[in-house]
């Protein structure tokens, strides 16, 4: 329940707020709270240890991205860990349903009743993430570092300027140049991957 006492976060709402603020401790807490139960479920549903880690990673990432975009909003009567479990479970059931697995394992009972449209959309978004990753790797060292610092690690322009020994205005211009290069790589990658 939403009012359940958690060791670090007094309520599920506090945990949700911490996750939406991207607190590292909240990620660690959620991982430790959710993974053991999901792993246990996976091993009982045609999955291996590594499958469990992969499906958990994808499900948890989709959940956190949906918090970022506002697609997932906190629900008073629903525990965050229950929602995460459901996300990860649906990732695995969708993969089981895919052609790769269909002929190899039996589907767990009740899967056909699950609407997998949202899962498919979330998984497609992970394809976009991989395209962005590939595009970022195509950037040269200094550009990649700057984009990573600003957009991935979320450092301020001032902090980056201090690290590079540059003026903040120069870093801002360089960010523009690098972001345009990244966009060009991304457009090429998107076409190649038919995104």
């Amino acid at each position, binding site marked *: 329940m939403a009012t359940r006492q958690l060791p670090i976060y007094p309520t599920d709402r506090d945990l949700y707020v911490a996750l939406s603020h991207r607190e590292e401790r909240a990620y660690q807490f959620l991982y430790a709270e959710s993974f053991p139960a999901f792993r246990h479920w996976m091993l009982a549903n045609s999955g291996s240890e*590594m499958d469990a880690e992969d499906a958990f990673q994808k499900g948890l*990432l989709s959940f956190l991205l949906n918090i970022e975009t506002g697609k997932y909003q906190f629900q008073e009567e629903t525990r965050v860990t229950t929602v995460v479990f459901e996300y990860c479970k649906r990732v695995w059931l969708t993969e089981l349903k895919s052609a790769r697995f269909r002929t190899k394992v039996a589907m767990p009972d009740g899967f056909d009743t699950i609407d997998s449209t949202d899962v498919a959309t979330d998984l497609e978004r992970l394809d976009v993430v991989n395209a*962005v990753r590939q595009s970022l790797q195509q950037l040269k060292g200094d550009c990649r570092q700057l984009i990573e610092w600003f957009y991935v690690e979320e450092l301020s322009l001032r902090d980056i300027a201090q690290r590079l020994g540059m003026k903040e205005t120069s870093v801002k211009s360089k960010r523009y140049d690098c972001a345009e290069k990244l966009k060009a790589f991304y457009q090429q990658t998107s076409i190649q991957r038919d995104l």
Partner: protein
Amino acid sequence: MNLSEEQYDIIEAYLANELSASDRASFEGDIQADAELSAEVERQRTLRLGLRALGIEQALVRAKAHYQATSSSQAALSSRESPIIRPLVRLLNTWQYWVAAASIVLLLGVGYYAFQQQLARRDAVAYADSFGPAPTDQVMKGFPTAAFPLADRPRLLDAFKNYKAGKYDRVIDQLKTLPADKQTIYYKNYFLGLTYLANRQPAEALPLLNSARIAPALALRQKATWFMALAYVKNGQKNKALPVLKQISTDKANPFNALARQVLQKID
């Protein structure tokens, strides 16, 4: 759409929710009126979300490492706290009992030693069959050399050559001081771990291969897990090798599935 720096800054501020209410309303009017601008804003939004996802992925890798470290330390603590099982000793009163007991111990000891020697040989054979002296392809395949700084790439390429030539001590020296960031550290640890393994130092290889098992790339995790299992075999830790090999052997999608089954047949 090619953006000017000014246009880029406005989109940046808009997506970061940093525009004033009036500027925001005005810009949204521009978006509605200009399909090309609208598409560009969406593209920029997608790129930022993708980059944000990479940040979350990194945070989840750290969360996983934290979870594994916590689980390991808790397991170690509980094993230390587990009650000591004391054998029930029956007192013997006559010297005949002592002689009989000593004979049994001697026989069991000799038999156990012979059995252990046989097992050790069998494990070594399994290891030698599955891990040849120069698995250079396994190191280089998919290795993101371009992800390392330009200045360090010649050293990395030289390390590959030395590895292929069997100069493992030299490779270890080169890799130990090779700088790595959050992305490349897993590959560096994997390469260094394999080199220790090839250099018959499995104890040194184990922590490095284990750390590569939390890499974001599935292919690297699978390779690191497989070679970690072999390192356990080589290090005489069959009890630790077996569950890993069994896990690989039951995962049909794992490229080392068949090899793991072969090794299991030999040592289990």
